[in-house]
């Protein structure tokens, strides 16, 4: 199918949605605006600077359809997926729709509210109106516009002022198609009140080999002096496409961290943007990706230092094998007003094969004069001296490679505060190593 035909098909799907599941008032208008935007922008092409190295023709030329209901999907099938178990509540979404029967929501801590977006749109839209589409702007982002146009379900996490949530909230998005290429567009909104603390983990998982597109948008509002740690674990199917957009607005003296761990998916584009809107804010954007075969993993980050005395730390690491490729673009903006900014960015890639490649671009736009900004990028191979050292200690070449790859990647996991998340990710990582030892 051509791109034009595919886009026309979304127009029909959109009209259908507006007819069958309309949203009242300004939310309906938001959808209209968003679709109009998508229609105007079209899917991005490589002529756009931020898509220069990421060819999404396979996405643009596929006619993805709205997912079907999967009433037949059983709890046993869910359990069999062996997803990370984090100990806290689990909200499960199947093909974009909240699946109460798969979820474990007992023991939600006092004061914390986690609801499906569908329910909130029906019963309590005023909660989300001030935030939806305000943090994740879509005027220049076709995928975000598309997600917003089809706004329907997802997760809404509200942490009232002063509430400290101990255990991570796990949001699990499963795509399980029934044949036709499916378009899932989960939406997450996290509203953390002043001085609250919360950890949110999103796992995006595909159960089958069929091609689908998971176009996810997450908006996070971090109140003054609040702490929000966000994790995205990408475990999409091997023919799956993922485009994720995480946008956070960070208040005064608050702390926001994001970890994006990409473990599978054919084409994965992760965007993460943070605006430090209050003085004394702190933000950490970390990412780890493992790529092999012909996978393409693209991480785009933006940290906007809008106010003075904010710190940001950024570390992205990737391991590439086979003919995989990766793109990292790290943009740091320091506004005129943002004196005493301290921004550090580092990007490291480990290439295990000669055919793998990585493109790195730091992009600093600094308008204030009293700031510290550092960035560095390294691309390297496994160190032969280290390999020999390990082999001289009786480890096989394969083992030695795995030990070194693990050390490289686990360094990033070391920054993860939640023990359960760190351990689960480490065991997934160890499982994947045999596929990545770069033969």
């Amino acid at each position, binding site marked *: 199918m051509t791109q034009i035909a595919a886009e026309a098909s979304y127009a029909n799907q959109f009209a259908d949605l507006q007819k069958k599941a309309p949203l009242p008032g300004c939310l309906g208008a938001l959808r209209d605006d968003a679709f109009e935007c998508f229609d105007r922008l079209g899917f991005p092409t490589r002529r756009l600077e931020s898509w220069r190295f990421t060819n999404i023709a396979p996405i643009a030329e596929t006619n993805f359809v709205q997912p079907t209901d999967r009433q037949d999907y059983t709890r046993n099938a869910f359990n069999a997926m062996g997803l990370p178990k984090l100990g806290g509540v689990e909200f499960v979404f199947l093909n974009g729709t909240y699946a109460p029967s798969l979820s474990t929501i007992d023991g939600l801590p006092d004061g914390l509210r986690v609801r499906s977006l569908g329910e909130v749109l029906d019963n309590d839209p005023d909660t989300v109106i001030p935030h939806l589409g305000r943090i994740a702007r879509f005027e220049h982002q076709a995928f975000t516009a598309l997600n917003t146009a089809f706004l329907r379900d997802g997760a809404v996490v509200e942490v009232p002022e002063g509430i400290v949530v101990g255990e991570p909230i796990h949001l699990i998005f499963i795509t399980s198609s029934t044949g036709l290429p499916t378009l899932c567009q989960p939406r997450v909104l996290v509203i953390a009140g002043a001085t609250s603390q919360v950890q949110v983990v999103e796992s995006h998982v595909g159960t089958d080999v069929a091609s689908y597109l998971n176009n996810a948008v997450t908006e996070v509002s971090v109140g003054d002096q609040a702490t929000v740690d966000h994790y995205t674990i990408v475990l999409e199917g091997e023919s799956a496409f993922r485009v994720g957009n995480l946008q956070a607005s960070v208040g005064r003296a608050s702390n926001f961290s994001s970890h994006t761990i990409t473990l599978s998916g054919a084409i994965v584009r992760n965007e993460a943007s943070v605006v430090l809107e209050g003085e004394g804010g702190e933000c950490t954007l970390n990412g780890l990706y493992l790529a092999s075969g012909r996978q393409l993993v693209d991480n785009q980050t933006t940290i906007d230092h809008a106010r003075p005395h904010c710190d940001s730390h950024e570390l992205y690491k990737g391991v590439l094998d086979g003919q995989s490729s990766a793109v990292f673009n790290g943009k740091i903006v320091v506004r005129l007003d943002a004196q005493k900014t301290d921004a550090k960015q580092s990007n490291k890639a480990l290439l295990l094969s000669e055919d793998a490649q990585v493109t790195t671009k730091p992009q600093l736009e600094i308008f204030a004069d009293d700031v510290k900004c550092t960035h560095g990028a390294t691309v390297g191979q496994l*160190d*032969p*001296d*280290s390999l*020999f*050292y*390990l*082999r*001289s*200690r*009786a*480890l*096989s*070449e394969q*083992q*030695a490679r795995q*030990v*070194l790859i*693990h*050390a*490289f990647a*686990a*360094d990033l996991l070391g920054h993860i505060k939640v023990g359960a998340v760190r351990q689960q990710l480490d065991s997934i990582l160890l499982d994947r190593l045999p596929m990545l030892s770069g033969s």
Partner: protein
Amino acid sequence: MLNIRDLQASAGSRQILKGINLTVNPGEVHAIMGPNGSGKSTLAGVLAGRDGFKVTGGTVDFRGQDLLDLEPEQRAREGLFLAFQYPVEIPGVNNAYLLKAALNEVRKYRGEPELDAMDFMAVARERMKLLEMDDAFLNRPVNDGFSGGEKKRNEIFQLAVLEPSLAVLDETDSGLDIDALKIVATGVNALRNSDRAIVVVTHYQRLLNYIVPDFVHVLSGGRIVKSGGKELALELEDKGYSWLEPTPVAAEA
């Protein structure tokens, strides 16, 4: 145990080892001395299977096997251990993790049951005592941030855990302070037995006061130009290398 015959090796276009002959029997301690750049570390590297050297002639028999035919890890499992002149720092790899993996590889190869974490820690702690090392080293990344002397001591600690049949110590004494030198030498001596052979590469007679060798060899210009008993080390200390043939490497380069 080890029988090196006319071993020749090059790196790039440069011939470094030019016909080494050396026989080491179980229970013996051999010292190899010689000027900088004479090929001592190259010999150690070729024995351990380091990449980058090309063996251009000769044979090495290790416990009845053609050593040069084996991968580095097979040599280690067969009982060869090299204490590196410059131990590599490996950030992110835990010292205890590496050593447990190494010991279990060796044990598997010998047909012995693998050790679980607890049994391994018991062995490791006991060996740390032998080398008067703090347990904290076990949980640090391999050599990462270790001082020069600590790295050397860590090599001998690994040796003590792995219990190889042939240990080659490449300038383990350099970088050690006087107390550490005694501790390391005591550790090595504790590992001496009638089945195990040790080859120490050193520049200093001092180490040989503690680890007393059965034989001393002088490696110069890629050849062993003189062999003798422990008195040879004293003589070298006194006279240097210039009285020995052939002329040092500088003249040959």
